[in-house]
């Protein structure tokens, strides 16, 4: 079963790459771009048929490795 995870920076944490992307988009005449936040996306193939169990495993992975909870939030989608 494939579980998808999105990791993003917490609100209020500086995202210099997102800022640079926003400024570049503005420079390319996408003037209405007001903010960009960059994140990470994972597709995790888990050998598990029960969706609830698979998601709970991935939740553990997020806490232990995929996200650093000091600055990042994660969402299992």
């Amino acid at each position, binding site marked *: 079963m494939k579980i998808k995870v999105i990791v993003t920076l917490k609100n209020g*944490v*500086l995202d*210099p*790459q997102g800022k*640079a992307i926003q400024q570049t988009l503005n420079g390319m005449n996408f003037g209405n771009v007001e903010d960009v936040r960059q994140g990470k996306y994972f597709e995790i193939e888990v050998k598990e048929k029960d969706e609830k169990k698979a998601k709970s495993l991935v939740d553990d992975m997020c806490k232990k*490795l*995929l996200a*650093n909870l*000091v*600055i990042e939030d994660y969402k299992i989608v």
Partner: protein
Amino acid sequence: MRSSVIIFPGSNCDRDMDVALRKFGFKNQMVWHNDKSIPKSDLIVLPGGFSYGDYLRCGSIASKSKIIKSVIDFANSGGLVLGICNGFQILTETGLLKGILQQNKFLNFICRNVFVKVKDKQNKYFKDLKKDLLELHIAHNEGNYFCSDDELKSLEDNNQIAVTYCGEDGTEDETTNPNGAIKNIAGIFNNNKNVLGMMPHPERMIDKYLSGEDGSLFFKNIIDNFK
């Protein structure tokens, strides 16, 4: 004084660290990350570099490698653990040190000499150090120290801030902050001050002809405090 330098795939300051430690009298051994145990040591060093290609987050993969459990046990039993640059990043990812090193504020790789102010001398690294300002070298892309307000307060309350970026005259402000680190933090301790992580490289400042010798003072001081 016996020391061990841990080598991860992608470490690149491990040999410089070995040379520096031996120069000042440490009996140093190199330890591979896949080993299960560390030879008897008084100091363990996690060197600079790009362990595991900085994949996922700097230091995150190394912080789960086989040898790390021994490093954590050693630290928790009071042993001295020093993380330089990528080693500092690894220590934050293991949870031995608070906070995280984020990408530099202006997205640039910084490679130059800086001055740092020693903020605390009640520890085995800086006790009786004759200087308050050290000129050291930094080379990093992710050195922008960040932690929560609560963590910062507890670092300050327990004097766990080890070194801060400053000017040659000791000024600490935005103009002397190379990477955007909060409070100009360049290095911190754990609660018991046996674990030290810092971005500057003392091992690059041990030769009076090539670099300057403030790194020499740092290593000599650790040995002197051990005697």
